[in-house]
């Protein structure tokens, strides 16, 4: 295996350039190096002006998502040697506006995330003296998969619907809403249903399924959305056919 590899990295400095361009850097390629190691090598040794986001290096923080050879990836979990002999093209996450180099504007996602109320909602909090809310292992399993989301936005970069219509609530936000809907301690499903059952919510999804393929934590947002569609559709039928008093 070659001991070096070429990275083709998106550079965009809005004060100097009208359009993003590519720049090539040759970096070492030991077998334990991930794409992020390559980028950090560029930043430390070749070109200190490169801007990219990263933090934990271990697939937890969700900040180092980028497009690697056309696919949305966590760069801390994507090995350079898998792309040998290269070159490896590193671009910012698709479907988001670029701020600088590999850094994208994530305000839209952050707003959508808060919009679906991803926290436990109780009609009435019980007093501390009554102790914690208990949960069986089965009740935990009902939502655990969806709680693995690290908000890395790879699913948004993978979603063609979000690419075409930025109003679409998007995979992670809906999956996280489901994470709380399915939590036995939560009582906020009705509030979230109002938001999720709008056209920009679940109905915008056409079940392409790329979000689930892109997810580095096996959350399966596509599955969450389809399950929720069934639930919302049955609620819609119930609304029409069950008289008000009987509910």
């Amino acid at each position, binding site marked *: 295996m070659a001991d070096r590899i070429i990275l083709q990295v998106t550079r965009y400095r809005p004060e100097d350039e009208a359009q993003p361009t590519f720049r090539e850097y040759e970096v070492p390629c030991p077998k334990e190096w991930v794409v992020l190691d390559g980028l950090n090598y560029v930043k430390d040794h070749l070109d200190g002006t490169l801007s990219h986001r990263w933090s934990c290096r271990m697939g937890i923080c969700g900040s180092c998502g980028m497009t690697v050879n056309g696919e949305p990836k966590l760069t801390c979990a994507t090995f350079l040697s898998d792309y040998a002999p290269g070159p490896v093209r590193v671009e910012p996450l698709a479907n988001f506006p670029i701020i600088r180099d590999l850094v994208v504007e994530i305000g839209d996602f952050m707003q959508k995330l808060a919009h679906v109320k991803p926290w436990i909602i109780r009609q009435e909090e019980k007093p501390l003296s009554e102790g914690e809310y208990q949960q069986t292992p089965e009740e935990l399993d009902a939502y655990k998969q969806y709680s693995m989301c690290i908000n890395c936005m790879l699913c948004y970069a993978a979603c*063609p*619907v979000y690419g*075409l219509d930025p109003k679409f609530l998007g995979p992670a936000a809906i999956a996280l809403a489901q994470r709380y809907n399915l939590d036995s301690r939560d009582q906020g499903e009705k509030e979230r*249903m*109002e938001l999720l*059952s*709008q*056209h920009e919510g679940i*109905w915008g999804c*056409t079940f392409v399924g790329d979000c689930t393929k892109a997810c580095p934590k096996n959350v399966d947002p596509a599955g969450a959305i389809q399950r929720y*569609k*069934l639930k*919302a*559709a049955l*609620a*819609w*039928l119930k*609304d*029409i056919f069950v008289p008000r008093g009987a509910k």
Partner: protein
Amino acid sequence: MTRRSLEPLLWLLFSAGGVLSALFLPVLLLLFGLALPLGWLPPPSHARLIAVLGNPLTGLVLFLLCLLSLFHFAHRFRYTLYDGLQIKHLNELINLFCYGAAIVGSVVAVYLLWNVP
């Protein structure tokens, strides 16, 4: 909840149509498109088939299969036109064409099934 939107109903039809057409259409096509015409299976007599078709239950099952498969097509084709060709601004025309075709197809199915001699 957007109660006036028909999207949940259209999705239910799409979803049910997807399941039913995936399960039953290949069986029907294999039987009546290949196995019987090519003589892989001994074909039932014409009179017998007409008698089976004349049973209201058979008619109902075939009608539902046609209706749901057509609505499955309509919904999927609508979004294919929306996103694939990116002509979502023509949505009223597209909806009319897709769901209209499904309704017309279903009416034709009723007509044919009703008029089994």
